[in-house]
């Protein structure tokens, strides 16, 4: 079988050689070695299932040789395929070595034939696919699509309370005065600072901060809160100025202060 394969190749007509040369010129046009093999297999003019893989391997190797002779640059994968086909060819030609492991030459050849057939099938399938009626070419979608419009409907709401408040506002607007904070119950930090400056001279020992609150501000909780905050802030100012020291034994424990440098 191998002999006849050789002979076929040797005896091949001029036409085939010319075709092979045409392939070489077009080497950039191939999508890889498998594509090239598929093209070469067509020159055997047989059904892909009956293709002679041995002959195909020889065709391919001849192609590579000619390309080399013409000093055409071939991508590495074409050379890898050439090496593999040379190996396959030797496997197919030599009697199988029982000690050797791995797939037989026939298995490898069958797989290559399968790959070629599969590639050819996908080529045909893609041609069929592209031959189908296509959207925007043969059949068409709606030319004036109406998108779903999002309608935002605004409803206004008001409650009876809004209404009454609005009316009250109108009827009392003559009384209106710009909003000012009611300072009656606010002890400012400035006030606290003034007060503390006068007092720290006497704070040689640790004294609780709370004892520095201004008189008359302890009873009313609102006033007490404001005075405490102001006094504490003033204390921090004085610590920053290096005039007093500050300590607290524990979380929420009383805060104590004393004059610095005692």
């Amino acid at each position: 079988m191998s002999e006849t394969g050789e002979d076929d190749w040797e005896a091949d007509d001029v036409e085939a050689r010319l075709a092979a040369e045409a392939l070489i010129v077009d080497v950039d046009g191939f999508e890889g070695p498998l594509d090239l093999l598929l093209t070469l297999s067509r020159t055997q003019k047989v059904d892909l299932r009956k293709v002679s893989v041995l002959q195909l391997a020889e065709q391919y190797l001849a192609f590579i040789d000619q390309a080399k002779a013409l000093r055409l640059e071939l991508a590495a994968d074409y050379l890898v395929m050439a090496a593999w086909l040379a190996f396959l060819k030797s496997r197919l030609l030599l009697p199988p070595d029982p000690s050797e492991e791995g797939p037989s030459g026939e298995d490898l050849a069958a797989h290559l034939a399968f790959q070629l057939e599969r590639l050819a099938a996908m080529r045909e399938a893609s041609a069929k696919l592209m031959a189908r009626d296509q959207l925007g070419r043969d059949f068409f979608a709606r030319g004036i699509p109406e998108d779903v419009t999002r309608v935002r409907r605004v409803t206004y709401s008001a409650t009876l309370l809004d209404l009454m408040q609005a009316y009250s506002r109108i009827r009392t607007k003559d009384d209106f005065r710009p909003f000012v904070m009611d300072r009656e119950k606010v002890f400012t930090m400035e006030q606290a600072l003034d007060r503390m400056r006068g007092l720290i001279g006497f704070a040689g020992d640790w004294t609780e901060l709370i004892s520095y609150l201004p008189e008359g501000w302890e009873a009313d909780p609102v006033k007490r809160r404001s005075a405490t905050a102001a006094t504490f802030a003033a204390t921090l100012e004085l610590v920053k100025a290096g005039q007093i020291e500050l300590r607290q034994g524990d979380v929420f424990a009383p805060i104590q202060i004393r004059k610095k440098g005692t």
Partner: protein
Amino acid sequence: MDDKVNETLFEAPPMAEQERMVEAILFATAEPITVRELEARMPHGSDPAEALVYLKKRYEGRGVQVMRVGDAWAIRTAGDLGFLMQKETIETRKLSRAAIETLAIVAYHQPVTRAEIEEIRGVSVSRGTIDQLIELEWIRFGRRRMTPGRPVTFVVTQGFLDHFGLENARDLPGLKELRSAGLLDNRPPPGVGAALDDDEDESPDGQDELFED
């Protein structure tokens, strides 16, 4: 004459086919299309005007309609199904201060003219505010005032009463109640109180007819 008819008969596709063609073109074109344009695209001798008559008839009562748009034709959603093309989102907004104040004045003083509303608010009332309240169906036009210029008056509607859960505009709390509810400042400026009382005393006359059940 007969020759012409024959010619057309032989060249043009059957009317049913022409109708299909018009249907496909109307569907696919990005813009409404004129009979002349249809003619230009269809096989020689076609009569798109006639095909359109059949097609229009075929779509009668369907979900889409063959409609004339100016001197062109298009397929459009049937008018009654427009709601399918919209997704409604309802957004609730608070009425503007001007609107709520105007509404309050109409409610408390109806029937009231625009000039009166402006006098009470101390600022002019924009057309938009009145329009908005009318659109909300919370106020409507009342009878004209029998004074020079015969100005229109505004009154609140049943819709207003429904919305605010009132049987009747007279159910609106009076100034005294507003005051005791803490909604009015406790200290009316001197003199205003009396004026308000007058107001309250006086208004029932004008309002009676409106507040009648």
